[in-house]
């Protein structure tokens, strides 16, 4: 049977392109737009879309110029001098894979595995990415083709169940945003989308390097970003969006599957793992390919010997994939040790801003120039010359745009983790500040399950626990000390806040930063005007709006 011939189909190329490129974008792009653009976030988004599209077109142009594949043609062209370039590319991809794995692991731990050691998150994921990257391009194409719907369906479901939460009335942010901020925001968005570079390698492995298919991929990537941007802005508003780089996760949290899943964020984050796998294993795959080429004995790696085997060296005998996995593990762990976890996203952004995008544009251009010279065209054609000039200008602009002030902050971790029968479920939380000097009065109405028979008609009995503490976290700790059980706030039905001003803001923001508290919970707010009913999500938005006004 001759169904395998080392190439990928158009469908595989499309799905690989989409999975590798939207994973980070859908989560971070809305945040970048809000931070850089304020109330003019749409301008940043538009600039980002334009930059990303241009970058994508450049990558397509390169792929057309290297019909045999950039790796192969570099090897042929530069012979022994190809090695530094191959090593440089391999290092770039290893760095990117390491940083993405690290970044992802931190997020995952913050939202899903709060009681986990970071290494317990990083190591298995890196090994699985290595396992996924150790295959050839055809198997990789088949894998991502298979995984495509695993990631897309949860995203579509989230979008469908979030529609009812969308609201455009609450706005925030500065009204006067500078042009530099807009352009820089667009550039940051491009940086997040720089995994488009991978298309340079996949396109040449496609049976037909088809512009229509590539255009379709780019358009769908941009449409996905647009949807993500609209939903995050619509559900959270600008102020909340720019408050956290992971604001998209709040949108996921707000989505609920009626009668089935109380909150969708865990499920969506779980499937988001697949997207991160696609990106990280993609970088590891290309790193592996470059290592293989860089350390082969003869310069023309793709020439096979009489037995049909590719010539190999000792490095290859140890296996290029193991080198890659080893390098990624070492770099990821080094990242954890060397830097504070809070700086990882900043380091990632700085590296991408200053080096990565530039290299991804300059190296192929350099090789292209050499290729043209070797082909006997002493003078590069006017068209190509123009293209290179434009490229130079774009790179120069990108280098000039600077700033690495954006730092992503994370919520602190919670070390509570118990099986569900070892928890006490709070149905109602009341916070008051009356007559208390150093703190607030917290009342937890805990569901009494001893006589619970699952009868929905019958009212649930509750027991009230009351304490005075500085914060909800402290109150929860007090409860744990008193009863040797944890309180779960994931199924709160009502929050009563008898607070005003700063006290209200502090409590609401503490609730916002607790991933277990659903933001759709009803809040009874008691102030001078009397009782007011509002959802926690809208209360958070309102407080942001008050702050800015």
């Amino acid at each position, binding site marked *: *049977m*001759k*169904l*395998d*011939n080392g*190439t990928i*189909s*158009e*469908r*595989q190329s499309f799905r690989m392109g989409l999975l590798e490129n939207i994973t980070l974008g859908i989560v971070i792009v809305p945040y970048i737009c809000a931070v850089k653009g304020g109330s003019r976030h749409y301008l940043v988004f538009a600039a980002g879309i334009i930059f990303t599209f241009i970058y994508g077109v450049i990558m397509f142009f390169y792929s057309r110029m290297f019909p045999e594949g950039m790796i192969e043609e570099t090897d042929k062209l530069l012979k022994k001098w190809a090695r530094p370039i191959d090593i440089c590319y391999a290092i770039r991809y290893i760095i990117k894979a390491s940083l993405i794995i690290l970044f992802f692991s931190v997020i*995952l731990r913050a939202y*899903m*595995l709060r009681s*986990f050691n970071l290494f*317990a*998150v990083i190591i*298995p*994921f890196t090994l*699985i990415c290595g*396992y*996924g990257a150790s*295959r050839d391009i055809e*198997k990789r*194409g*088949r*894998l991502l*083709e*298979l*995984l495509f719907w*695993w990631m897309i369906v949860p995203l579509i479901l989230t979008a469908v169940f979030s529609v009812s939460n969308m609201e455009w009335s609450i706005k925030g942010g500065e009204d006067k945003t500078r042009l530099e901020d807009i352009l820089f925001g667009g550039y940051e968005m491009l940086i997040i989308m720089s995994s488009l570079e991978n298309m340079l390698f996949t396109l040449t492995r496609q*049976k037909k390097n088809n512009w229509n298919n590539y255009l379709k991929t780019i358009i769908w990537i941009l449409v996905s970003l647009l949807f993500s941007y609209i939903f995050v802005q619509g559900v959270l508003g600008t102020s909340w969006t720019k408050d956290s780089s992971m604001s998209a996760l709040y949108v996921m949290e707000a989505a609920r599957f009626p*009668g*089935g*899943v*109380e*909150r969708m964020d*865990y*499920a969506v*984050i*779980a*499937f988001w*793992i*697949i997207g991160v796998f696609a990106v990280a294993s993609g970088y590891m795959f290309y790193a592996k390919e470059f290592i293989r080429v860089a350390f082969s004995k003869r310069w023309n790696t793709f020439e096979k010997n009489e037995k049909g085997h590719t010539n190999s060296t000792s490095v290859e005998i140890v296996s290029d994939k193991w080198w890659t996995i080893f390098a990624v593990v070492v770099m990821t762990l080094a990242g954890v040790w060397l830097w504070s976890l809070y700086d990882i996203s900043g380091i990632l952004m700085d590296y991408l801003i200053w080096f990565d995008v530039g290299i991804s544009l300059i190296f192929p251009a350099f090789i292209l120039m050499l290729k043209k010279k070797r082909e006997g065209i002493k003078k590069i054609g006017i068209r190509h010359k123009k293209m290179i000039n434009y490229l130079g200008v774009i790179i120069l602009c990108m280098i000039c745009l600077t700033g690495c002030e954006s730092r992503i902050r994370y919520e602190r971790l919670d070390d509570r983790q118990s*099986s*569900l*029968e070892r*928890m006490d*479920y709070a149905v109602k939380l009341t916070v008051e500040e009356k007559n208390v000097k150093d703190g607030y009065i917290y009342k937890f109405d805990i*569901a009494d*399950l*001893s006589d*619970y028979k*699952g009868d*929905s008609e019958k009212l*649930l009995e509750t027991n009230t626990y009351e304490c005075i503490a500085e914060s909800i976290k402290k109150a929860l700790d007090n409860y744990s000390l008193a009863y040797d059980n944890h309180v*779960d706030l*994931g*199924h709160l*039905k009502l929050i009563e806040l008898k607070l005003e001003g700063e006290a209200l803001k502090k409590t609401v923001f503490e609730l916002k930063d607790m991933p*277990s508290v659903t933001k759709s919970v009803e809040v009874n707010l008691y102030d001078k005007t009397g009782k007011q009913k509002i959802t926690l999500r809208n209360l958070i938005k309102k407080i942001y709006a008050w702050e800015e006004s």
Partner: protein
Amino acid sequence: MSILYDEKNRLNVDISTSIEDNIKLLETLFKDCGDIVQKSFFIEKFNSRIRLHLIYIDGLVDNNMIEQTIIKPVMYEWQTENLYNDMTFWDRIYYIEAQTVDIKEEKSTDKTIEAILNGDTAMFVDGYAKAFVISSKKYPLRSITENDTEAGMRGPKDSFNESIRQSTALIRRRIKDAKLKVVQGTIGERSRTSYAIMYMEDLADAGLVDEIKKRLYRYDIDALFDSGMAEHLMDESPMSPFPIFQTTTRPDKAAAGIVEGRVVIAFDNSPEVLMAPCNFNMLLQASDDYYNRWMVGTFARLIRYIAAFIAITLPGFYIAVTVYHSDMLPTRLLYAIANARSIVTFPVVVEMLIMEFLFELLREAGIRLPGPLGNTIGVVGGLIVGQAAVEAGIVSTIVVIVVALTAIASFAIPNEEFASVFRLLKFFIMLTSAVAGLYGFILGLLIIAIHLSELKSFGVPYMMPVNGSKSEEQEDIALNNQDFIVRPPITRMKKRPVWAKKENRVRLRDNYSRED
């Protein structure tokens, strides 16, 4: 004795012209074989006494047939006393006296002995360095019974049995086309098990047939007792839990596979035939799907896909949600689970493992025990032990429901071998979920997905048509014309799958002339 055999257990002595030598050889070979029947006869013909020697295995041959077709005509009803004087004694027996069509001459001792062991009768004639091999097989056989392993509501009910000849006949009965080829041979140095490779000459890829032949002889095995052993010999991914052959006991399924361009391999003594290539999708299809109306077939198939997903993921998902992500559960359900678990002493993971182990134990015991006792075990285990375990606080009611639902889902998978893989991988997912909640759950599924996407069955990607198509044409065939989850109406399934020969992919066309 061992000097008579070569390293591959084949006899390396020739048949002698002296019948005494041949008899001595047979006596040496079959020493202490009480089921061997052999006798010499003398015929006084052409002014000389000619000695014949017959040998067969008692119980494997039709004695009456030997009497009627060989002994009686040759010994007592000699037809050519004064005729055909130009013919040799050998030729007279072969062409005139023997009253059977299925008689052949054999010059190789090894082949002759193999024929005797297969239930044929051999006749040695003095003065000739060859023997007659007369087909006289009459094995003790199970009759063709109703299919109980792949039962269906609609469609034929017959099934293959242990006779290779009946297996090939059941397929021949369904495909009356001379292009259906049956390539026969034997495998196993000691068992000499017969096999038959069946395929349509104009539909099956020649490379596929060659590859199957090549793989069959990749190893020299001493004995092969079932198609399952052959499957493992031919396996390209022995470390994978997923089968790369489809096995079936249904002749209609095997015949349908052959006209799709697939290859069927039948083995003697095995009621299951192997079909290749095979993919994930095929293993979730049942014959009924094609006999019922397309919407009904599609619905049944959808149920099976969901069942397969439940069979592998439900216990793991339950562990992940209850141990790590109880926030996901609707409040009332959470309270119900928490309440049910409040009297259980074990953690969720141990509780689930206990229940799953109990279920697997019951299943295994049910298979080993005879029918009525097996049912009793099911009742005793399922109802009494389950109920007692809940009351004793060993497991909670919710876990009993989860395990029961998982078990029912695994039984909905039509291929037992495939269902076993799901039962096995369920434990893997449980383990990963227990270690890291939904993160572990997804990583576990990811490992399975990576493995599945690299798996191939004779060059065909295992997850086709979900992935693996190489061109628009293949995608078109795989997605639009072939049956995946949706089983399209028969009138729309106009093309054969991608593994059929390209020039003969059309299997249904409009008959505008309305001719027969």
